[in-house]
């Protein structure tokens, strides 16, 4: 039984993909320059301009970080099925330091220039006179904001990098039981560290600090879990997209419809989970009808954001529910591709309304600038993810659970 059959496991970046990446980044840069030239006249315009970059960069940081979350969780759960394509979420998670750096620069720029059109709590005069803001200043202040943001992004990057480093050992040589156990054990420890930090940041503090504090008076205990659900389901969709792309190019031979089906289940289940959190938050605020809470939804449901508000629900809940309910749809490459793009777009819209609905309450600014900046981030993601994919074998050949993944039946 020799392993004479060679499989295509070394990804080579097609020239066309590179061209696409550069083109998208180029479009993005042009949009950025044009936006800077035409949309930064007044303070309000500047807030919208920076806010547009801000929600994009936070969105992409969180959805690429979701890949590392996926790896950490499946590692802790001793999952076997994901091993045949685990290098894809690994490659996507290499974006965390890159998008994280952009996020850091943008957020610190806002904080240090005191842009109180975005973060009202940066306005020292208001804080002095406003009892509520003064009370919150122990949390909402530049110092803590800076330290926590650096720590959050830094540790996601570091702990994620350590997970990926460990994964390289699966390329080296076959592991016997003892070695395999020690490998799994070290993976477990590193995954646990990542998860704990993830819970303390994405699961709680970071969405409050970065996004919820735009409405400095408003609060909702659900906010962070909601943000997590939104970013996780988009993160799963992004993984599915890359898996399908590589399949189409003839790679990932061990990954088949069974794995796709399970990815589809994740997209389906977490779309519903997102809707569940959405409903819980919205319904409880609507039901008790207290002005200090309903203010958040006022302009979103009854004001200019009404259309986007319902679009958000249709794209992110109704369509996955109806389209992904059927088994065959989760096993169909074309349909999963379509749904993955739709879900990522839908949650991008969700992030848009979460952030911009608070910065620009009266007018919906969604336009060419948003799509331009989005294309910059997509281009950047394609460029670096494909590089990361090409940097090591696509299959962790000696991973102790790889064989389980190969014969996986959903």
């Amino acid at each position, binding site marked *: *039984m020799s392993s004479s059959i060679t499989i295509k496991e070394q990804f080579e970046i097609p020239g066309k993909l590179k061209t696409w990446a550069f083109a998208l980044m180029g479009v993005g840069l042009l949009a950025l320059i044009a936006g800077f030239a035409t949309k930064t006249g007044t303070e309000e315009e500047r807030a919208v301009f920076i806010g547009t970059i801000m929600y994009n960069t936070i969105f992409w940081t969180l959805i690429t970080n979701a890949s590392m979350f996926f790896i950490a969780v499946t590692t802790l759960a001793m999952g076997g099925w994901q091993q045949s394509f685990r290098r894809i979420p690994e490659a996507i998670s290499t974006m965390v330091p890159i998008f994280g750096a952009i996020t850091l620069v943008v957020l610190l720029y806002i904080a240090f220039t005191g842009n109180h059109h975005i973060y009202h709590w940066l306005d020292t005069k208001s804080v002095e006179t406003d009892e509520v803001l003064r009370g919150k200043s122990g949390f909402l202040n530049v110092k803590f904001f800076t330290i926590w943001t650096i720590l959050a992004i830094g540790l996601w990057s570091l702990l994620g990098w350590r997970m990926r480093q460990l994964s390289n050992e699966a390329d080296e040589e076959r592991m016997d*039981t003892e070695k395999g156990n020690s490998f799994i054990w070290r993976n477990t420890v590193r995954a646990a560290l990542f998860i704990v930090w993830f819970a303390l940041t994405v*699961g709680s503090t970071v969405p*409050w600090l970065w996004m919820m504090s735009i409405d400095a008076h408003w609060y909702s205990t659900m906010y962070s*879990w909601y943000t997590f659900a939104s970013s996780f389901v988009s993160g799963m969709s992004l993984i599915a997209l890359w898996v399908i792309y590589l399949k189409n190019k003839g790679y990932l031979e061990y990954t088949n419809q069974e794995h796709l089906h399970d990815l589809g289940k994740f997209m389906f289940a977490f779309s519903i989970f997102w809707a569940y959190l959405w409903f819980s938050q919205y319904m409880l605020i609507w039901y008790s009808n207290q002005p200090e809470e309903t203010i958040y939804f006022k302009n979103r449901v009854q004001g200019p954001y009404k259309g986007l508000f319902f679009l958000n629900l249709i794209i992110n809940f109704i369509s996955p529910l109806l389209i992904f309910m059927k088994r065959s749809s989760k096993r169909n490459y074309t349909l999963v591709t379509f749904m993955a793009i739709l879900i990522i777009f839908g949650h991008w819209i969700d992030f848009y309304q979460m952030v911009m609905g608070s910065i620009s309450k009266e007018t919906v600014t969604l336009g060419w600038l948003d799509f331009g900046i989005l294309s910059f981030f997509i281009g950047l993601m394609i460029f670096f993810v494909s590089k990361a994919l090409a940097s090591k074998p696509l299959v962790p050949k000696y991973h102790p659970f790889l064989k389980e993944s190969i014969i996986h039946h959903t």
Partner: protein
Amino acid sequence: MHLKYESQLREPLVYGEKTYHNVTEDIVRPIEAKPSKLWYIGFYIAVSLLLFGVYSVYRDVTYGIGQWNLNKTIGWGWDITNFVWWVGIGHAGTLISAILLLFRQGWRTGVNRAAEAMTIFAVMCAGQFPVWHMGRVWMAFFVFPYANTRGPLWLNFNSPLLWDVFAISTYFTVSLLFWYSGLLPDLATVRDRAKTKLRKYFYGVASFGWSGSTKHWQRHESLSLVLAGLSTPLVLSVHTIVSFDFATSVVPGWHTTIFPPYFVAGAVFSGFAMVQSLMLIVRKVFGMQDYITIGHIEAMNKVIVTTGSIVGVAYLTELFMGWYSQNKYEGYTFWYSRANLFSPYGWSYWGMMACNVLSPQIFWFKKLRRNLYVTFFMSVIVNIGMWFERFVIIVTSLYRDYLPSSWSVYYSPTIWEIGFYLGTFGLFFTCFFLFSKYFPVIAIAEIKYVLKTTGENYKEKMVHLEAVDASVFGHSGHGHTIVDNESSN
């Protein structure tokens, strides 16, 4: 032939030299034997508790709710605390049957049957509290929406209390169907082995004429899938709606948007703790160590540390928002009433924190996860902690809210409130003892399903597959060649 393979790094789910026949023997034997002395002692204690409960409820019905120490301010006390506590415990069964089934977790087969039974009994216990709390219990049928002659006195569909009626009765129905349809093949196994006429008759009726034909299995499989699909949202919906009982109000400490998912996590947490307590007893009393292995116990402890930590994040989120909101009523409830150890009920908040958040953290250590004594002790601690959680939420929010002139004096239960609670333990354990005597406590058919992949003796035969190159797995059409080569050697 479909290749049976599992990594050697995973522990076997079934220990010992086992064939299909051994599995049947091991699991059905306790049903066919006379119960042990221990069983009788336990059963009598349970029945006595149940009778005490019946008497407590009799007092409540005859003399009214005044038998309890509830008052105008603390309108919900032990009753609703116990109700939520039992409903929460009733979550693990469906989670194990439905969600772990969807996640293809093989270890669920060792514990799913008992967990599902436990779910049903726990929901039965939970249901007692709101019903008897009505006082005029003969009016209980008012909760059903039917055309009536009471004029405008129609149900309030806006009330989460009514949603509870629908949520819990749906949950109970689906759980019961799931549990029972899973039992059918196993009951038929018991029937086929029966030596007495009565036994044959009883299990014959109970197994609905199951013959084990392909058609039966086929329908059984599709039914399981449909029920799993129905149960999965139910796992979330029941405790979500229970949380709405509190969260839709404007009472400080109750109105918080994170309540639904955090209640669900807490429910799973307490449910697993209860499964753990029961399974440790069952494996000892019936000698099921080969089927409920340390690996099973460890897996459940992992669920406990995960859900305990999720609940911990939720507690801290609430506490943080109590300050961050700068809402003085929320701030008062969280910081002066609950988290303040020296307030009248401070002890219950810290009891909750210690039991639910701090103590499960010991399960980060593998040694402790696999220690039976620690596990049993922790499973009890967790359920005490989850009882505290409901008590904290209900009583500490009610006894001091917006109007200090209505603040209540200290609330402690009367003997009849405690008796009612003990009575539900009686009901729960009476049912569980009967179940464990007359029904297979482990799903025989499902153990057989995983046996050849994860049974110890079958795994030993797979050792050679570890040396086979991964690419062969990919090219062999799911392993035909590997298996054939091996058998011809």
